[in-house]
């Protein structure tokens, strides 16, 4: 799919902006702190309602303003026009409309306008805590399976209730009442993770091999916190753990503790890979995400590259290009073009203090 245009109001440092895009490669050029990443963030919000920077909704509202408005127009892969409108304000509450129809649930937006974002924060996926990896996995799986999203939301809600009961030392039957919905959600979550993970892993292995010209191999390995293959088995796990859970005042075990490892030649890349290899692994993970979304949704995602293309060495950069379908629309930012030769291939905008001005091709010729 392709983004044809975006209108923004009061998004971070961007007061009011209306941009049209005519090509597949768009570059936002400008010094730090001018608003390049903010625009990518806004595009990302249209596909997942979340900031890829992990920022809260409120922090994306321009200072002194009360409401953000985003309007995007897409061309889908079948040539049809699609549009989405998103509004959110200080008081909370988001309004989403897709093609003029109000959308009530996150699940109805997720996966409609897929995007994959590369940013310098990505190294967290290798180096940081399991919760970063889980967030990534949950978002990818939720975008491709509404059943997964429903189960995940149900799981966290039931767990919240159960934890309140554990903390206030409620009687067993009351806690049990909430373990039923916890167990049935856990069953669905783990089943889908078990089904979809192999496909993600395959995409990951292929992309890492492609990135390194088959010199190195990397795998994703799913590490469930505990394994159960039926709702009844989950029920007995929560039953068994209840005593200890009571002491801690929270649910200690379950899919909310699952993790996966990124293995480089069979060893955990968190400890055994060099910084350069870790960068490659993260990049391969994003490429895998891209192909997985494309395969599952049947839609070409947008690629958002926040200040990362310039950081890759030339051979990785050209391999990276080769792995993505040539007609994938990419939006990139940087303080300069990734390389001198690249000025002409981009449709570019100069970014300054939240303003975006197209750079005519002729101006970059000299």
């Amino acid at each position, binding site marked *: 799919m392709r983004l044809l245009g975006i209108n923004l109001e009061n998004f971070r440092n961007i007061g009011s902006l209306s941009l049209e895009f005519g090509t597949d490669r768009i570059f936002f050029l400008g010094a730090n702190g001018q608003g390049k990443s903010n625009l990518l963030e806004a595009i990302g919000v249209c596909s997942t309602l979340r900031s890829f920077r992990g920022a809260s909704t409120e922090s994306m509202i321009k200072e002194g303003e009360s409401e953000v408005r985003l309007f995007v127009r897409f061309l889908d892969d079948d040539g049809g026009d699609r549009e989405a409108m998103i509004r959110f304000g200080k008081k909370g509450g988001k309004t989403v409309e897709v093609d003029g129809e109000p959308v009530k649930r996150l699940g109805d937006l997720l996966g409609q306008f897929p995007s994959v974002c590369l940013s310098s924060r990505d190294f967290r996926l290798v180096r940081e805590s399991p919760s970063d990896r889980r967030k990534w996995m949950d978002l990818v799986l939720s975008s491709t399976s*509404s059943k997964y999203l429903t189960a995940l939301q149900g799981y966290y809600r*039931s767990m*919240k*209730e159960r934890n309140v*009961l554990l903390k206030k030392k*409620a009687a067993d039957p009351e806690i*049990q*009442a*909430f373990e039923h*919905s916890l167990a049935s959600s856990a069953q669905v979550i783990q089943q889908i993770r078990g089904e979809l993970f192999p496909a993600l892993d395959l995409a990951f292995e292929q992309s890492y091999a492609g990135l390194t010209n088959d010199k190195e191999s990397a795998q994703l390995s799913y590490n469930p916190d505990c394994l159960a293959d039926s709702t009844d088995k989950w029920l007995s796990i929560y039953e068994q753990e209840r005593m200890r859970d009571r002491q801690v005042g929270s649910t200690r075990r379950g899919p909310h503790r699952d993790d996966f490892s990124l293995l480089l030649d069979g060893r955990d890349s968190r400890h055994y890979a060099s910084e350069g290899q870790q960068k490659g692994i993260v990049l391969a993970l994003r490429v895998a995400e891209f192909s997985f979304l494309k395969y599952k949704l049947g839609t070409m995602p947008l690629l958002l590259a926040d200040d990362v293309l310039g950081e890759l060495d030339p051979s990785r950069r050209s391999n990276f290009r080769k792995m993505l379908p040539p007609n994938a629309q990419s939006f990139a930012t940087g303080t300069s073009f990734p390389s001198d030769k690249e000025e002409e291939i981009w449709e570019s905008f100069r970014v300054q203090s939240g303003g975006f001005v197209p750079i005519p091709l002729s101006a970059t010729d000299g």
Partner: protein
Amino acid sequence: MQALKSLPGLGYRSAEKVALHLIVENPKASTGLVDRLTQATEALGPCHTCGNLAENQLCSLCASDERDSSQLCIVEGVTDLFAMERAGIFRGLYHVLHGKLAPVRGVGPEKLNLISLENRLEDGKVKEVILALGNDMEGEATCHYLNQEIFGKREIQVTRIGFGLPSGGGVTYADEVTLRSALDGRKSM
């Protein structure tokens, strides 16, 4: 106005509208309303048996001898009972819980209308209990709790109302969650 705003279903604007109407536009209506509210609060209270609104100790349903006392339908609120009665499809008796289990909001079993529920099951007249609670997570948990703690100990048939497509509605416009429960609850022909 603040007092009006705190009522369920009224936001800032509607509260403002109602307040203006009662004070400026139609002050007569406001005295009438106050009288009626006073009368209603004095006359009505919860039915001692089922929790429905009642003018006496028992509500009209519990007092009636035309209802089938072997069937008991459990509902969350009085409005649910009204909805069932409007439909006129159920001839048994009701029991209103006045809520559902929601620990995060501080609602535990002690806040639900359960003691009178156990009392009315004592004499063994009730043969079937129909759980007509919503199919959200709290409704689900409440059903499990009641089944385990109250009905499980007795010889009572426990059923739960089905969930699925609204009648007259086609498959096309149903959302996925509804379709899933409709499929789960399919019947053989």
